[in-house]
């Protein structure tokens, strides 16, 4: 009996081992096939250019090759929408937080189900959500706007650091301009909305009302922000230039063409790289001034998303996990200057540099932006109207009315859907 049982047992065991071996071989075969098709990752600008640096570690750990494609910011929105329409979105892609709601609405994103990815974030940073409130993106980096300033130029005008309220800040600009009439005090490119919306955010004005279906730009607080913004140009403290005209802002900053440059953290890296043109001792950072002291500022927070139609979701999420780990985020900070979204990364000595202190403070106090589909377009169109005010083609009050009209028009479809209850 025992002999037969052992024999049967042995046969069963060997059968099991054959099945196990076969399935392992099959899995191995599948793994080999997966290895041949790389995972695709799309990212904008610097993240796209430098992400290849982080891929060797990932490929070594998981055996999956990754292919990175860079999108220029100016064309990213249309490229992503076209890819969505043509069903050729990559497995993983980067989205600024303002676009997440939009892409979730059109079913391009897979919801974040692994809650581990959303823990341990820097206070003030939260995952961007879709229309139903579910998280659809994993925060990756935050880039709040601060001001970079030339210490030597400010010292010569009698300032150790930039003032923290608007009026004093403007007076500093006037003093700088008086000393160097051919140069400027600030650089605020006319086709980027970041500075105007920074000022607006600090006043506490909400840009939209009635469940984000109507514009609220006639709010006196926003009027103050717009008036302040325009006054800087009117007094010739900032050049009325577009990004296509100031082709090399860092060189211009080094040459003293302007003394204060509101920008995000990636400029830190550019400046370190070009230290020959502008030694680090000559510049520093500070929080942006608010009406009565520094206030809330929105930053371009970027997140990573997985495509809803990705053919390898497990591998895609693994890549997201790798890229949003504190170690990777620190690497990005070292390479391109964007700041990590993970709190753990901030405890390291790398991020205790004095130049980054302003960012750390600013990050704790972000504004909340409307997470609607039209938000990107609204910002761009409001900035266009602001540009016309700067160029003297429109008065401020007429501009505010125009902004509200335009935004109401843009939100017409959303209003219709909200009124019939189809949208939250």
């Amino acid at each position, binding site marked *: 009996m025992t002999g037969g049982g052992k024999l049967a047992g042995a046969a069963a065991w060997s059968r099991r081992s054959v099945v196990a071996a076969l399935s392992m071989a099959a899995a191995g075969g599948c793994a080999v096939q997966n290895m041949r098709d790389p995972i695709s990752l799309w990212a904008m600008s610097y993240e796209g250019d430098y992400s290849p640096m982080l891929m060797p570690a990932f490929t070594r750990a998981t055996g999956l090759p990754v292919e990175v494609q860079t999108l220029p910011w100016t064309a990213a929105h249309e490229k992503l929408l076209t890819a969505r329409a043509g069903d050729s979105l990559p497995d993983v892609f980067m989205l600024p937080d303002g676009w997440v709601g939009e892409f979730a609405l*059109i079913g391009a994103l897979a919801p974040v189900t692994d809650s581990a990815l959303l823990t341990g974030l820097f206070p003030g940073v939260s995952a961007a959500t879709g229309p139903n409130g579910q998280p659809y993106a994993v925060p990756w980096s935050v880039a709040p706007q601060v001001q970079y300033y030339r210490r030597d130029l400010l010292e010569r005008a009698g300032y150790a650091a930039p003032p923290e309220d608007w009026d004093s800040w403007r007076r500093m600009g006037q003093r700088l301009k008086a000393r160097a009439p051919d140069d400027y005090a600030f650089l605020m490119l006319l086709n980027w909305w970041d500075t105007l919306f920074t000022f607006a955010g600090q006043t506490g004005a909400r840009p939209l009302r009635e469940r984000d279906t109507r514009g609220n730009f006639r709010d006196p607080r926003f009027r103050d922000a717009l008036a302040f913004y325009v006054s800087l140009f009117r007094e010739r403290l900032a050049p009325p230039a*577009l990004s*296509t005209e100031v082709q090399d802002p860092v060189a211009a900053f080094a040459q003293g063409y302007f003394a204060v440059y509101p920008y995000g953290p990636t400029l830190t890296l550019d400046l370190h790289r070009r230290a020959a043109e502008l030694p680090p001792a000559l510049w520093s950072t500070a929080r942006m001034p608010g009406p009565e002291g520094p206030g809330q500022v929105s930053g371009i927070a970027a997140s990573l998303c997985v495509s809803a139609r990705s053919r390898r979701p497990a591998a895609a999420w693994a890549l997201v996990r790798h890229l949003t780990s504190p170690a990777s985020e620190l690497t990005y900070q070292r390479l391109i200057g964007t700041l990590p979204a993970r709190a753990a990364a901030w405890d390291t000595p790398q991020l205790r540099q004095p130049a980054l202190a302003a960012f750390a403070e600013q990050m704790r106090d972000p504004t909340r932006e409307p997470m609607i*589909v039209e938000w990107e377009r609204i910002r761009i169109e409001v900035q266009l109207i602001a540009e016309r005010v700067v160029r003297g083609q429109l008065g401020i009050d007429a501009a505010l009315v125009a902004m509200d009209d335009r935004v109401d028009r843009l939100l017409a479809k959303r209003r219709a859907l909200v009124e019939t209850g*189809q949208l939250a």
Partner: protein
Amino acid sequence: MTRQERTAWGFVLPVLAIILFVFALPTVLALALSVTDYSIYALADWGALRFVGLGNFTDLLTTPLFWRALGNTALFALLGVPMAIGTSLAAALLLHDASVRWKPLWRVLLFAPYVTSVVATAVVWRFLLNTRFGLLNRALGWIGVPPVDWLGDPHASIPAILLFVTWKIFGYNMIVFTAALAAVPHDLMEAARLDGASRWTRFRHVTLPAIGPTLLLAAVMSVAGFLQIFAEPYVMTLGGPAQSTTTVLYFMFDEGFKWWNLGQASAVAFILFLMILALTLVQARIGRRYEWL
């Protein structure tokens, strides 16, 4: 006959099928799209699509940017056609002169910009027109003109782009006018010269009437071309500064492919079509009048 017919259909059907598929069908669809409110919501959910009749068109009529785009496009055409036709005519006249040597060489070199890629040359010209480092402002500086903010000043941006466009396309009409000049009746010219007419009089009374129809046709066709300017603003100025170089086609591209408002964008396309249709009818009238259609 039937054998001929069979072969004919065999030859003609493939390309006609393609034309139907990529041209006729979409054009009809464009008309259909323009009466809906197709937007990004519809991309998400077909159920959100609504029929809006002429709603898109009335919306457009109250959109300031649309009127600005129309105005910019009209300005492009108004300034650009004389510039382009004038330059082509001048070049053709210059090359036509009997005393010029090595004509084929100059002809090729003057024509070369026409075959280059718009994107590549737009990049070169963006650099040439740079306010601080551009060659054009340097050359102006040599003759004492202060630097012009070509691509940053809303008033200078259209002339700046027109400089580029003229440079790029003048070769085409130069060739056309060269052929027309060659067709000017010699005996008439000889008679005029024997009569002692000056160069200018000869030009006005013999050459100009002879090439008149060609000039007119070229001008009308140029207008159609200028109405469809897109690549130059796209590469050089992103439609700015202050949307001063946003053309109808740029507006349509932004509306359609950047923001996915295909309903409105199709309405714009339809309006563009009507404008060009009107132009072509004018062209046909002129052609019939001068009897070469």
